[in-house]
Every structure is written in C-alpha cells, then in structure tokens.
C-alpha cells in the first residue's frame, strides 16, 4: 500500500474510531456500575442528533407530525456561527443526557427496586429504544436530514496535502470530530480519575453495597452515570450527523450494535478499553479494501469473535479469577 493511501486510511479510521470510542464509553459507564447493557443507548445517540438539528434548523419539511412547523420563523438563532453551533451541540447532548436519566428512572430503577432479573432490564431498555425510535419516526418521518453545510462556520470543506505526487484529503468535519472526541475523552478522564464525583463513581462501580454504607448515595451516582452516558451518546450522534447526515430514526441502531463490539474488544467495563476498542475498529474498517467495502459493517463483529477466542477479557480488560 502506498504511503499516501495508508495515511488517508489512518486519518479516516481515527476520525470515525474516535466517535465509536465516545459512544461506546456511554455503554461502558453504565455497564461498569450496573453490570447491564443499556440497549436504549443507540436511540439516545439518534435523539442527540435530532435535538441538535432541531436547534440549528428548526423545521422538518419532509414528513411526520412536525411537518410544516417552523420553530424559528426568522431563521434559527443557533445557525451559521461556529461558536453558536457548538452551543447547540452542547445543548443537544445535555438534553440527550437528561433523556438517559429519564430512562434510568423509568426503566432501570424500578427493576432494581424489585430485585428483578437483570435480563428484564435488557428488555425494558429495548422497549424504551423502540418507543424513542418510533416516536421520532412519527414526529419527523424516516427521511435523511442534512445539517447546513455552514454548520461549523465558513470553513474549507476539506484540507489536502501532498505526499510525493499523491494527495491526501482530510474533511474538515473529520478533524473537528476527532478534536471534539479527544477533548471529551480528556474531560471524562479527568472527571473520573481526579475529582470527588469520579472517586464516588468508581466506588459505586466497585461495590454498590459498601459504597452506600460509606455514605455515597448510590442512586444519585447512578443518575450521574446515566447523564454522562447519554451526554456522550448524544454528542456522538450530532458528530456523526454532521459528517454523514441524520439518516433517519434507525441510524443509531448500527452504531448501537457496533458499540457493543467496541466494548467487548476493549474489555467490558474498561474505560481506556472502550477508547482503544473504538479506535481499533475505526481503523480496521478504514483499511477494508474498496472491493470488499460491502462487508465493512461486519468487520467490527468479526473482531468481536476473534477477541473472544484469543483474549476473552478484551484488549485492556483484566482477567478475573473465579471465586465462590
């Protein structure tokens, strides 16, 4: 492979891989505390993208109950200016986080209070996902909505540089996605590793019973976890939406499933694992040769099987000893 092609693949892989990473972190946070997978995470991802789109554009012209309604008759105040677009993205992610909190209150907490089987929490979170996805479809239809091309301001759509006589092209959106993801990872790493909230979260993850004896309100920190998880999921949704368009109510499903491969690859419940897993899968997909590109969506799941065979605890997970 030529150097220019190689670099191009690496750049593409890192950009999408970093989104996989922050999305999958949402799974990991909840898993490390509750030991269950929140299957509504993909739906929260979709919601984040739609929330931001609503703030920026404010109308859905194609279909659904909201058709013909224009939230901002004089144009959205949150459009055109990159700083304001960042604000819209932030609000979208916060609202997605609040939805995740709502999901925890409605679908997960009642289960815990009843001491129900963890499997049932899976089903109820899937039920929530079904409700969210179909509600979106009912409101705005199944069509693709594209963010305005000047969402990030008047920037060049792509940068290119030369290696020998070959050209490597980086879309500006990819650079922004990568940068935002890195910043998010750094912030999250700081919050979990260095702050009091993070310490409490880690304590709850280690042992909820002991944590509550030590005066940590377990339910409150579970809410915080869900908020962080939903925030990251919603942010990932907006980022992917700006790069590829908001591709209908079901566009979170593929990411939801790939996110599962990411966390298994990195190691269930491991935060650095989710990052490494996301980047590895992003890179692996970018290096799929063009003639096999139809199989690209299977790469993440093939890697999942490989890791189960050779290193079941995941790349960065710790092997645990069976105790009675």
């Amino acid at each position, binding site marked *: 492979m030529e150097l220019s092609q190689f670099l191009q693949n690496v750049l593409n892989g890192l950009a999408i891989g970093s989104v996989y990473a922050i999305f999958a972190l949402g799974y990991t946070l909840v898993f490390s505390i509750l030991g269950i997978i929140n299957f509504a995470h993909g739906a929260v991802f979709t919601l984040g993208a739609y929330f931001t789109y609503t703030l920026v554009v404010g109308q859905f012209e194609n279909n659904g109950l909201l058709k013909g309604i224009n939230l901002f008759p004089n144009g959205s105040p949150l459009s055109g200016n990159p700083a304001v677009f960042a604000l819209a993205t932030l609000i979208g992610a916060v609202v997605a986080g609040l939805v995740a909190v709502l999901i925890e209150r409605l679908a997960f907490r009642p289960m815990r209070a009843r001491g129900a089987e963890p499997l049932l929490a899976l*089903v109820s979170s899937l039920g929530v996902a079904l409700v969210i996805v179909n509600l979106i479809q009912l409101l705005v239809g199944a069509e693709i909505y594209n963010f305005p091309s000047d969402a990030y301001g008047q920037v060049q759509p792509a940068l290119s540089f030369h290696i020998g006589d070959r050209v490597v092209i980086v879309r500006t959106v990819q650079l922004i996605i990568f940068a935002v993801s890195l910043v998010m990872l750094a912030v999250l790493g700081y919050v979990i590793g260095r702050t009091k909230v993070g310490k409490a979260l880690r304590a709850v993850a280690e042992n909820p019973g002991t944590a509550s004896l030590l005066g940590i309100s377990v339910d409150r920190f579970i809410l915080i976890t869900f908020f962080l998880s939903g925030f990251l999921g919603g942010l990932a949704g907006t980022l992917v939406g700006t790069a590829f368009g908001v591709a209908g109510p079901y566009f979170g499903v593929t990411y939801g499933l790939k996110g599962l491969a990411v966390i298994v690859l990195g190691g269930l419940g491991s935060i650095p694992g989710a990052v490494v897993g996301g980047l590895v899968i992003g890179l692996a997909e970018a290096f799929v040769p063009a003639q096999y590109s139809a199989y690209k969506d299977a790469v993440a799941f093939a890697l999942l099987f490989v890791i189960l065979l050779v290193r079941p605890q995941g790349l960065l997970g710790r092997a645990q000893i069976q105790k009675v």
Partner: protein
Amino acid sequence: MSGFLEQYGFLIVTMVQAGLLGLSLYFPLQAGQLSLASPGFYALGGYVAAIMLTNPAFSGLRDTLGNGMFPLTWLVAALLCGLLGLFVGVPALRLRGIYLALATIAFVEILRVVSLNLAVTGGAIGIFGIPQAFGFQDRWQYLWLFGPLLLLTLLFARQLERSRVGRAFRAIREDELAADAMGVPPTRYKVLAFVIGAVLAGIVGAMSAPFLNTWNAKQGTFDASIAILAFVLIGGSRNIWGPVVGGALLTAIPEVLRFLADWRLIINGLVLVVASLYLPQGIVGALQGVRRPPPPRRPPSVPAVVEAPGGGA
C-alpha cells in the same frame, strides 16, 4: 370455518411459528444462557430451504425426490445450524455472563451482511418464488407442519426437563460454579443447550421459506432477536408454555392494535417496558404465582449486578 381459516390462517400460523422461535431461545435460557442468535439460525435455515427449492443446481435432486425434498431441506437446515451453533457457541460459552448475548448479536449481524452480499442468497433482493410445501393451496395448511413441530418440541422440552441433561441445565443456571464442582461440565452443557435452540430455529426457518414464498436478509435482524427475546421473557422463561403464550400473544397484539396505525410500534415498546416491570416472571409465571407464594424480594436500592465474566460474588 373455512372462511375463518382463510381470514386468520396466516396470523394463526405466524403465532405458532413465533411460539417455536420463542422455544428456540428457551432452551439456552434453561441453562442460564441468554442467546439472541435465533433469527440468525432461522434466516440460515430459510436460505437453505430457499436455495434447495429454487436453485438450478438442485433441479435433478428435486425431480428425483418430489415432495420428499421438503423434509430433506429441514434435515439439511438442522444439520447446518447445529454445526454452526457449535462453531459460534464454543468460543462464547467458555465464558460466563453477557458474552453469549453479545457474540450472538455479532453472529446475526455478520450473517445478515454476508447474505446481503452473496450471489447465492440473491443479495439485497433475496430469493423469490419458493414453491409451496407439498403443494399447499392455502397458508393455513402450514399448520400441518408447524403444529406437529410445536407438539414435538413441547414433548421434547418436557422430557428434557425430567432427564439428567435437564437437571444439569438447571444446576448450571442456578450456580455454574457449584455445578462445575459437582462434576457437571458447564461448557459442554451450555453448548448443548445452545445447539438444540439453533437446530430448532433452523428447522422453523426451513419450513417458513415456502410459507413466506420469498426469503431475504430482513428475516434475520437484530430487531427480530429482540422480538423473540420479548416472546420468552413476557410469556415466562421458566415454563415451556411461556414462550408459546408470549409468542402467540405478542404476534397477535400488533394485529389487534392495527387501528392505532402509526402509534402501534410505540405502544408495542411500552408493552415491553410495562410487562418487564410488572410481570417479571412472565404471563405464565404470574398465573402460576397466583397459586404459589411470591419469591423473597432482594433488599431494595442495591443494584442487581450481573456477574462479571469469570468473576464471582
């Protein structure tokens, strides 16, 4: 009577079919393993039947066997799905916890992507014009296939529960480590339970391909995995009637709710949430619970944590 069957025959057969798919997930659950692979094996079984019944490569065999071709497709589907079940189950079932669920989600997705891209499975369009089994004229006649299969499966499940193997499944479900210590090899029995489910889903698929006339990659999706899981958990996962009741009910509900039009799927999702909250033992479990005292509750506010892989309490 014939009018009734003509109008509702398709729905009734679909309800029985759903019950069977629910049972295919019930077997691994007997050994405490959550599998979401049923749609994958169902799709594979259907593709096997569709290819054997339409592909020119098999025309000689079809001419020789005549109607005998249909049972042959069931057999081939069962064998292939069983083998693939071993292949998928062994790596995932060495581990404890949620790994089988995740591996089976991956399996269903891989199978879907592959069948979308292969020429032999008809790509995105799928396979058309699959002949009706045994020259059936009406859809309800498929009850003659699915009905006996359901009965046989229920009998098999009942006998299995009373056998040494069934006791081993339950021992593993209750406490894998203790079962291991008592000389019950967990991996072997977990794989066995998974393969039984795979074979059943494959046969149901092979019977369904002629029933549906066409077969494509939409038969085996993550959505289908969820639907089947819901059949079992809402019907009741601790009793053989649970998946049957759940499958039949959840298949019928969308039909009954048809007047809700666009709100139908939303209501469906709400049903899942509410049922998992208020019917944790499933419908059949709740009916039994009327006679039995409820199980002791775990202390509130401590989250129920799934055991980490290889970890213990």
